[in-house]
């Protein structure tokens, strides 16, 4: 088993039960309380989700301007920031860094802005999936993934062109359908 008094090892492999993610969820809520985007990194049931939204929009939307951007909520912290008519909210653990999250929110907004070209709420309403894709470029499982705006925009654009290319390859939908029907 061992030579020259070499010691044999035995390993217990740890079970790193990782707690919930650093960012639990991301919400975009309009000033009127309409939800524009929800992304959940921790597990919440459907019921919990709408409850969270109800509670948080009640808390956040009623807060006046020039107050701090942090709300304690159910033992967690919600960092929110208002851009025009939209509130961007991220929920983090109490030991998370609030200012870092504010920067992430700002980063996201800037990327959106670059991508859409001075983004407005309507852009996000009609391109809700794009807003998701961009968020996915920035955050992965609740962690900041890409801190360079240029890189994010570039890779989103690359994927867009990939989508377009795929469409052209197979031809337009209608001709496709006609071909399909002609069979």
């Amino acid at each position, binding site marked *: *088993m061992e030579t020259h*008094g*070499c*010691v*044999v*090892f*035995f*390993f*217990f*492999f*740890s*079970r*790193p*039960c*990782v*707690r919930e*993610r*650093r960012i639990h969820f991301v919400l975009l809520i309009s000033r009127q309380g309409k*939800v*524009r985007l929800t992304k959940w990194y921790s*597990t919440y049931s*459907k019921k919990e989700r709408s409850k969270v939204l109800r509670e948080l929009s009640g808390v956040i939307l009623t807060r*006046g301007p*020039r*107050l*701090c951007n*942090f*709300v304690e909520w159910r033992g967690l912290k919600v960092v929110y920031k208002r851009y025009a008519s939209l509130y961007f909210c991220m929920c983090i653990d109490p*030991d998370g*860094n*609030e*200012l*870092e999250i*504010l*920067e992430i929110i700002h980063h996201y907004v800037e990327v959106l802005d670059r991508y859409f070209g001075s983004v407005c709420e309507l852009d996000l*309403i*009609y391109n*809700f*999936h794009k807003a*998701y*894709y961009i968020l*996915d470029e920035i955050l*992965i*499982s609740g*962690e*900041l*993934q890409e*801190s360079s705006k240029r890189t994010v925009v570039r*890779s989103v654009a*690359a*994927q867009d062109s*990939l*989508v377009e290319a*795929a*469409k052209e390859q*197979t031809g337009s*939908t209608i001709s496709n*359908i006609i071909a*399909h*029907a002609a069979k």
Partner: protein
Amino acid sequence: MSGPSLMDSLFQRTLEDLIKGLRQQLIGEQAFISKALEEIRKEIKSTDLSTKSTALLKLCYLSNLHFHDMSFAAFHALEVLSSPRFSHKKIAYHAISLSFHDSTPVLLLITNHLRKDLTSTNEFEVSLSLQCLSRIANVDLARDLTPEVFTLLSSNKLYVRKRAVAVVLRVFEKYPDSVRVCFKRLVENLENYDPQILSAVVGVFSELACKDPRSYLPLAPEFYKILVDSKSNWISIKVLKIFAKIAPLEPRLANRVVEPICDLMRKTGAKSLLFECVRTVVTSFSEYESAVRLAVEKIREFLVDEDPNLKYLGLHALSIVASKHLWVVSENKEVVIKSLSDPDPNIKIESLRLVMAMVSEHNVAEISKVLVNYALKSDPLFCNEILGSILSTCSRNVYEIIVDFDWYVSLLSEMSRIPHCQMGEEIENQFIDIGLRVKDVRPELVRVARDLLIDPALLGNSFLHRVLSAAAWVSGEYVEFSRNPLELMEALLQPRTSLLPPSIMAIYIQSAFKLLVFCLHTCFVRGGSTAGVSASASYESFDDLSIENGADSTVAHGQTCTSAPITNESIVNLLKLVELALSPLLGSHDVEVQERARNLLGFVDLIKLEALNSSGQEENESERKGVEATKIIRLVHDAFSKELGPVSLTAQGKVPVPDGLTLNENLGDLETICGDIELPSSNTFSFGYPSEEKDVLSFSNLQIKEDSGQSNESTSLLAEHRKRHGLYYLPSGKSEVISNDYPPANDPALQGDNNDNASDLVKLTAESLVPKRKPNHSKPRPVVVKLDEVDEKPVAVKQLESRDDSLSGAVRDILFGSEDILPTSSRSNLPNSNRKGKKKQHMITQVESKENVVDDGNSSSRRRKDHSHGKERRHRKKNAEERNETDRKEKESSSNHPRRHKSRQRAEEPLKVPPQTSVIPDFLL
């Protein structure tokens, strides 16, 4: 199929159409959505993937923003996923990561799709599937896809690699065995120069270290390097988080790291990094004086900043420091107090917490005064926040910080008069609690209660009713301290009491009863025959001075307590008043009120005759009747003068079941319920005695025939009161003897014991706090009666702190099986002193370790082998137990050889640092 499919496809609404339609809301949102859902259900069955994916996208939209169930589409999402087109894949992945969870039935079918995409040459496809994996991975997926993730960890596409790193976290979490395969590469990435990769790796480690910091101590040198070299604030913040967790475990590491952190704090311009430094220092480096000072300096900058965010965080950081360095808070006292009037409620609450953290016995009066002033001015919500925290802070550990109870009682009454106050219930509890526990404060308490009762305006405020009920109870229970019982009587019977709810009304009437008895007793019994007084006087005089003899006590009472003399005439008026006030209540709809009123009036009827006669001329006649009436009065008075003491929550359990008492099954069930300390009901119900035993016991040695009605009446009142304030009641006469919880306070013989008890308990409670308190105040703190389980509270608080330890201990138990021993040797040379030696500490497998020790040069080839070792390892695990045995013997025998010494550490290390073991050796080479 092609017919409807064609139509569907041609006229399918796009996502944009859906959103537009939803916004126009021609037919109402719900109707529109259900119509759209119907369409989607049809379209999603289409064979055309474009149609299908559009339907899926629309469904995602509805599910995401309107929370509609999309689990029915799980299989369709998989079908779309199999499309070769990127656009379809993207939609499918989006839908899957949105809707799949551990119990999704088709989750099993996704493995191959993911595997295919993970090995795709298109980096975006890889990224999509990684993204998806990070969200939906369960044990099976994590296990099956570990090899692919492992490969991607060293992908030369940074875009892919950083995602793979992030996904590893989820894979580890779901399938711990993957640690063996992937950990090594993960650690290799720590040395990557690309900030994005580094950021991802450090992020993973900061998450891992949160859970079990000790395991990652061996990587400290790598983290240290990153901390010193890092140019990116994102990375620095994450590394700081790691150090905040691991540095406290190893003092030498902390010594080494504290300086770079301070440097960072001085140099950085980014507030987020600065704040992270500050927080790291105050949480994990609080024993480093200079670092804390620097952090405090920065906190102060935050506090005075215009930005409310910084202000809030400054306060927050202060509250972290407060637990260890209270001076920091006092230094910034002004800012903190000023923040109480900040427009932001969150800042206000944070500063309130800080203010409460500053409270000590020396400044509690000053701070409370300030706070009450703030409460007066603030909005109802914050006002009650303030009052609530004053109440809870002051009552903490049985009024630990209160020295001057007279002051505190008047503070309570002041607080209850604040217009927005809604803390009536808590104030009520404390009034009664203090009355029961602190004898010396009773005169003041009665005075305060009188002021509350006498003000008719207060009766109109429903939030105050609870306070008033306490005041009424106090003034009845401790009536002997009242200066003017007649005045109190009028207050209790004033017409506006009709505004009170019946339950409190009942307490008012009962208190009036006690008052009346007291007045009559003073007038007839004590005033009439001095001989009769001595016996009862010893009961009611809590003033130790007045116990000596009856005559003295009478004098004492005459002088101190009743400034307004109670004459026959006033008694007659009193009786009239009672009749006048209570007769309407005879028809009350509330049983309690009606019964109490009846009892009191019945008593008045009994007494009235004599009272009227004694004011008349027929001396002899009245004398004879007077004797009878006096007897009644004395009996009732004795009944009321028995002091009520606080009762231990566990007292009930200490009452043995008397012999011959058979408890039927139902009550037997109750016993288990009552045994539960959590249940307050255990105090209201004693299974040994009939429910009216409470009162019977208090005059147990008196024969009462005439008063049976009263005894019932007072019983029900007491029972009701008891229900609400169960905590303060003695369970029964017998338990009193047996449980020796609370010796009757008015029993002079036991007085000494009582004090001893209390001081014992005081000693028990908190050694650190009590001695400090005693030496330095002019006015001695009155004895506060405590009960055993009340004293357990501080202990419980301490346990709370230590619970974290036990929790992580439990985690470690899970992590390392039963062997959670932490060999000190393994930590001893960790910090930066000897990095190379440390890296050598860990081996991944038996084979590797052998190789490593035997011939270090060979290990680069090992890396490639590693992957294939999987099965072998699993096999080896079986024999591991035995080997461990041998292992230890081996170690013992080899301890004197320097090289072997190292290997011994290696052997012990894996017990708690399994993951790194796989990796570090190769770093050397």
